[in-house]
């Protein structure tokens, strides 16, 4: 209620965002919703109250929300190659084409320890276990910072996967995104619940759409383990906003790693609440941005809340930027009263390969417990000249030396991937990609 009052007092300023919101909503074909109907109605109310963000919002200081606010997506050309990342790994494949689940291209929706359905199909059918979760973690994640595009997602999502994990699942679930239409504007919402003691690895690869809004809500219950590895498709220009909302229970583990290679305007928000004692939550990203392929702007915004004792959190963000690329990091650790023995660490680093690029970081710690260990670090720099000379003096050509040093810079983030096969696969692709464009 307090927030509504604040908004009301700012009514003259809020007027413009409201009309932006109206235009945005009018352009959408809003699903009516079955089991999600109540959550969607609530999202509509909340969105009307908060409006869409403008450049003046503190949380949007470094990223202009205009491309996300625009009523429709700007058509963007793309290369139609299918992603082959993780091809060699045994997996359960779920294919989304322009944001719609493609059953023919996907594996059967079953597996030991898994209960899987798609949002569109389940919502049409009615009752569902995900009714307890859909929009719930997103709503909880609106405090203390508003995340209007996540609310919009809950309101407007047309498809997604709903996964309930009841056992230790060794075969990763792989969500593959494919693009067909050049102007697809896609809103996807995934809901994942890991029951006590269960384990799942979720992979996401491919180019989603010209514009995408993806939200993932993950509930990691007691002693469950969740690994998330996403690779945002290389070389396709796109506009994308993503949110991962996680609630991590007692003794549970949550690990998320995202690789982003090019693109044009992206913002990924990670909102993690650690609610059970002795839990672990890590979130990491490796980003490679080249401003020559259109504007490159990549924003990672993270908010980790410690609300339990003896928990560990890590934020590891590495961005390699060149030719006028912008890299942003806003990361916060909030330690609530009573969250003693918290071990929180955050590192964000920008590697600038030329003088035209920039890395902006806003680290924040807010601590209300007295027996905690929390620290953060942020650096921005160029390639280490001594290391360059060392490699070249061994006969490694300059371009190849840059590739090795870029991989070296990203290593800490890649180390956050626990599974060697998945990490090696990403490393190999990264190496090939960097080498193929070493001279650019």
């Amino acid at each position, binding site marked *: 209620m307090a927030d509504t009052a604040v908004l009301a007092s700012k009514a003259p300023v809020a007027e413009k965002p409201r009309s932006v919101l109206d235009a945005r909503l009018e352009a959408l074909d809003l699903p009516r919703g079955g089991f999600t109907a109540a959550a969607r109605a609530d999202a509509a109310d909340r969105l009307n109250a908060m409006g869409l963000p403008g450049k003046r919002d503190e949380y949007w200081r470094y990223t202009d929300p205009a491309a996300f606010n625009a009523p429709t997506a700007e058509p963007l050309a793309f290369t139609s190659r299918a992603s082959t990342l993780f091809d060699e790994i045994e997996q359960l494949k779920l294919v989304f084409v322009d944001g719609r689940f493609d059953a023919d291209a996907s594996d059967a929706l079953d597996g030991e320890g898994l209960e899987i359905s798609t949002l569109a199909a389940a919502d049409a059918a009615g009752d569902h276990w995900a009714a307890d979760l859909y929009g719930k973690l997103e709503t909880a994640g609106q405090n203390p910072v508003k995340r209007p595009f996540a609310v919009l997602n809950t309101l407007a999502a047309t498809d997604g996967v709903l996964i309930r994990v009841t056992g230790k699942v060794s075969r990763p679930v792989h969500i593959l995104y494919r693009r067909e239409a050049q102007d697809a504007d896609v809103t996807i919402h995934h809901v994942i619940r890991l029951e006590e003691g269960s384990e799942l690895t979720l992979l996401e690869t491919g180019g989603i759409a010209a514009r995408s809004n993806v939200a993932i809500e993950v509930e990691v219950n007691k002693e469950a383990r969740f690994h998330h590895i996403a690779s945002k498709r290389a070389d396709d220009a796109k506009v994308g906003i993503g949110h991962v909302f996680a609630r991590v229970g007692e003794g549970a583990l949550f690990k998320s790693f995202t690789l982003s290679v090019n693109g044009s305007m992206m913002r990924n928000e990670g909102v993690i609440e650690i609610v059970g004692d002795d839990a672990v939550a890590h979130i990491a990203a490796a980003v490679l941005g080249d401003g020559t392929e259109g504007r490159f702007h990549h924003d990672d915004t993270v908010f980790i809340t410690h609300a339990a004792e003896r928990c560990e959190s890590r934020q590891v963000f590495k961005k390699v930027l060149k030719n006028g690329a912008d890299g942003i990091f806003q990361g916060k650790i909030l330690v609530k009263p009573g969250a003693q023995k918290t071990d929180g660490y955050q590192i964000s680093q920008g590697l600038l390969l030329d003088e035209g690029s920039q890395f902006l970081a806003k680290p924040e710690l807010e601590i209300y417990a007295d027996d905690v260990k929390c620290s953060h670090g942020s650096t921005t720099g160029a390639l280490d000249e001594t290391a360059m000379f060392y490699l070249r*003096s061994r006969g490694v050509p300059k371009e190849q030396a840059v590739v090795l040093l870029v991989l070296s810079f990203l*290593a800490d983030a890649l180390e956050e991937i626990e599974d060697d096969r998945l990490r090696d696969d990403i490393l190999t692709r990264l190496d090939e990609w960097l080498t193929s464009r070493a001279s650019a």
Partner: protein
Amino acid sequence: MLNIKNLHVKLEDEDKQILKGVDLTVPAGEVHAIMGPNGSGKSTLSYVLSGRDGYEVTEGEASLYDHDLLDMEPEERAAAGLFLAFQYPVEIPGVGNLTFLRTAVNAQRKARGEDELSSGEFLKVVREKAKTLQIDADMLKRPVNVGFSGGEKKRNEILQMAMLEPKMCILDETDSGLDVDAMRLVAEGVNALRSPERSFLVITHYQRLLDHIKPDVVHIMSNGRIIKTGGPELALEVEKNGYGDLLAEVG
């Protein structure tokens, strides 16, 4: 062989002359040592020869066989057969030692128009050479020089040298930071590489390294010049009397 004539070098960003006319010839198969007090220009000479940024050659020349070194990029000098063992080997987190070695070996082979070594061939050779330097499998797998002790770092330099098979090896204060046993191990590694086709330029402050790596010729460097050249006995003289007498003698 390495041929340096009247080499003058200043710092690129500062008006500071470091080398003031160095003349030096190291014939094939010979081991030459350069000794000299701090700040005499020994390390600068090694950096300029291997192509490090930050220096400007104002006069003179340097060649390795028929290659004009000063016109080449560092990687081209390496492919032409020059190797610098660093005083402070650089740590490269996240890049495995083996990956680094194989990248370097194959880059040089490629530059010389030779076939690249297959993974199997490379591993066979590297394991063999690592064994004689007492470098274990774990050190080969670890990131380049990360967490290595002083002795391990220097042994790793010698392993790179052994794998790259250069014609001209420059050792920049390879003895610094080594205990007696580590120094002996490094020296044995270097001695094993001595051959009629390979030359060495050993830069050191102390005579003790030269007990293990026996030089044919010893040069004394001071204030940017070679001020005296002699046999191994010159190193003993320095050890006994310090640089003071020598500097006074030359004036």
